[in-house]
């Protein structure tokens, strides 16, 4: 038993460390050709909501569709209208990406609505920008976000109840087996 327990500690540490990277790629939100570049923007999760989102950019040559890995990519996000204008500018990098052919930026979107996304790409002397819209939905209720964790208690309680019932059945069938 003591031998078995040992893996628990590394496993807990393992789980705790799981926050640092997320999957990227995801749903195509925007694809435009600008100058020598073909820019594709993906979002993960595919339905973008208020809160944390990963935007990934695939930069390709527009002529032969080959992937460009040494471009400089900047994302500008603007939410026009309303009482105040919210604006972000941040670099998208390979370091932040799981898929190293993409450029990724992690950001926290504060409000729902239609955001303007502008991607600036530059490589050597070539520069280009593409723009598009990103529809951001309101934040999901936290109970919905974490619903699998709330299922644990009723599920284990149900299994426990079945366990007890089966055990009683076994005791009735084999009275001598009772402890």
């Amino acid at each position: 038993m003591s031998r078995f327990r040992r893996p628990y500690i590394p496993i807990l540490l393992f789980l705790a460390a799981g926050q640092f990277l997320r999957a990227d790629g995801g749903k195509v939100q925007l694809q435009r050709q600008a100058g020598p570049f073909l820019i594709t923007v993906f979002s993960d999760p595919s339905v973008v909501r208020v809160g944390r989102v990963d935007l990934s950019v695939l930069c390709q040559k527009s002529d032969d569709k080959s992937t460009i890995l040494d471009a400089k990519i900047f994302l500008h996000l603007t939410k026009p209208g309303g009482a105040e204008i919210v604006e972000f500018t941040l670099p998208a990098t390979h370091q932040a990406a799981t898929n190293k052919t993409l450029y990724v930026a992690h950001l926290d979107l504060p409000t729902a609505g239609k955001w303007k996304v502008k991607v600036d790409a530059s490589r050597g002397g070539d520069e280009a920008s593409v723009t598009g819209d990103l529809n951001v939905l309101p934040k999901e209720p936290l109970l919905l976000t974490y619903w699998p964790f709330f299922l644990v208690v009723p599920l284990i309680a149900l299994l426990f109840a079945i366990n007890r019932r089966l055990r009683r059945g076994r005791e009735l069938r084999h009275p001598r087996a009772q402890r």
Partner: protein
Amino acid sequence: MDAVAAAALQSWPWHPWTTAALFLAAAVYLSGWIRIRRLVRTGHDGTRLPCFLAGLAVVWLATSSPLDAFDKLFLSAHMTQHLLLLSIAPPLLLLGRPLLPILRGLPKRFVKEALGPFLTSPVCHGISDWFTSMPTAWLLFAISTVVWHFPAAYELALGSNAWHDVQHACFFWTGVLFWVPLIQQTPGKSRWPAWAPIPYLLFADLVNTILSATFVFAGRVLYPTYEAVHLGSVSAQTDQTLAGAIMWVPGSIVYLVPAAVFAMRVFSPERQEGREPVVRLPKPDRSRTPVLAIKRLVPVRRVAKWAMLAVAIAVIVDGVRGAQIAPLNLAGVLPWIHWRALSVAALLLVGNLFCMACPFTLVRDMGRRVVTPKFRWPRFLRSKWLPVALLLLYFWTYEAFSLWNSPFVTACIILGYFAASLAVDTLFRGASFCKYVCPIGQFHFITSLVSPREVAVRKQSVCGSCRTHDCIRGNETARGCELYLFQPKKASNLDCTFCLDCVKACPHDNLGLLPVLPAKTLTEDPYRSSIGRLSKRNDFAALALLIVFAAFVNAAAMTAPVMMNEHKWHARLGPHAMPLVVGIFVLLGAVIAPVLLVAICAGFNRLIVARDRLWEFSRRFIYALVPVGVAMWAAHLLYHFATAWTTSLSFVTPLQIVCLDAGLLLTLYVILRVAEQYRAGMRQAIAIAVPWAALSIALYGAGIWILFQPMEMRGMLH
């Protein structure tokens, strides 16, 4: 190598839950495999372990390698992933014959109590036989394979991470079911004729071939998602053809080779499947195996105490002389953030390690070299009422005077603690300060009721023949238990400071830091040395109740809604009214509400339970709430600990909820076990348990509400 290819090969996604689950499965299998190998050796052992580990490695490769990073860009990558999950990993895992090693690798008690009824139930056998019968397994496999390749279903999986996981789970588990009748059948006991696997595999290959051919010859891109992105010269159509080829050629080999093997067996003149001779090895003598070389911990404990004393001195010095900005001062960070969280983590993983390394007792021991205590602790104070009052005072002062935010006051409190322990223990004999005064100690005593280890007797028979009772009286090498705990009669960690004096003193080496089921002693009400029966002790019940409810009060006090209300009343009542407002909040949350709620639950029980046993049972149910209270402390302190290290908190909330889940489950279990001890029937037991279960669920709900509130980052920079 091409730069893009190099970048692709560096794309390793990080899925901690999957990796942890696979790691756990490997650890359990390995543990069981080693145990079985010690007892029995068969000719298969050499291949089973590598097969199982290879199967796990294939699952990991499919879900956590560049294949996963590119599965939404290339259908061919996605198809390879599916092939691994559906047709490679399941047979490898099953060739490892995992059932027995996994059952042997899991804790015996868990297998017997939790899994046993399922494993021996005829109903479960029936369900399992149905699912693993050839027609059912084949149909499920075919339906899953075909349905998930419909464009609508496939696009659904590509557009949602959750559906994508469901798709992979379907492929993997139907793959497992498909291969079970072929691999797991007992020789000579198969329900199907020996030739049955041949059409079984050939028809599976037919399904696979039809699907593959559809991809290859469709003439259009079937899944629009892949059409959006073309990389280099690889068009979506080419990619789809490649995916079809992967599915067709390696996919068919997976079915045709085993079909050929089965055919050879059927048509071979020697069809006897002889069983491997089983070699049974003698059982290892476990009675001599030490549970833990606990005596080695005695010098470690001394080192830990000195280390803690050094830390305490550093905290005091920095608290008095350092910058009075809590996050930049040791007195603002170490005691309130790190020490609290680490001591609760130690309680949950091992036991009362803080008391074991307590620096206050070190100073006390030095003092006792100069002054020998002469008095006994006053009889009227030999209870937990004084620590209950001190703990309540502490919870109030902590909130009212923002102790976490004042390094100087923190330093003064630690100094005061040293002075108090020195004064009490140089005047009074035994560990009077630990047992009757120290609020920190009482907190650890109560929370260590859910610890997985306990200083306990290994064999009661050895203690039965012992005449010297050195564990409590002491001898020339070690003092006996200063908290008057007689080991043969000790149950649970209550009042145990893990000082190990008893271990050192025991001449029979019969004491150890033994594994126990968390909260097990709460399901019973034995006579406990130096305490008596918990069901008779109001002071212990009050202490437990305070610690449970204070967990919620303490966490709630840092949420925005509670703080806003406090400030609102502060503004109404005047500039110096904050301590009063906080005092009322603490009193309401940690004293009045629990007393009222307990009274209501007892009131419901009065309808069933005889009046003379009503309070006895109510006290036992109060102790049953300890796990959910400890879970709340753990969840709260985990938050502080995590925010001290990182601003990325996406992993914290799930872990906090898991803590609360575990606490609630343990509490519900204890409640049911206590109620069963009174039952005249199961219905009555449930009726008794319902109000207390409702209270624990309400506490869980309160805990979840607290976790979801915006938090005021008190005493921190971010």
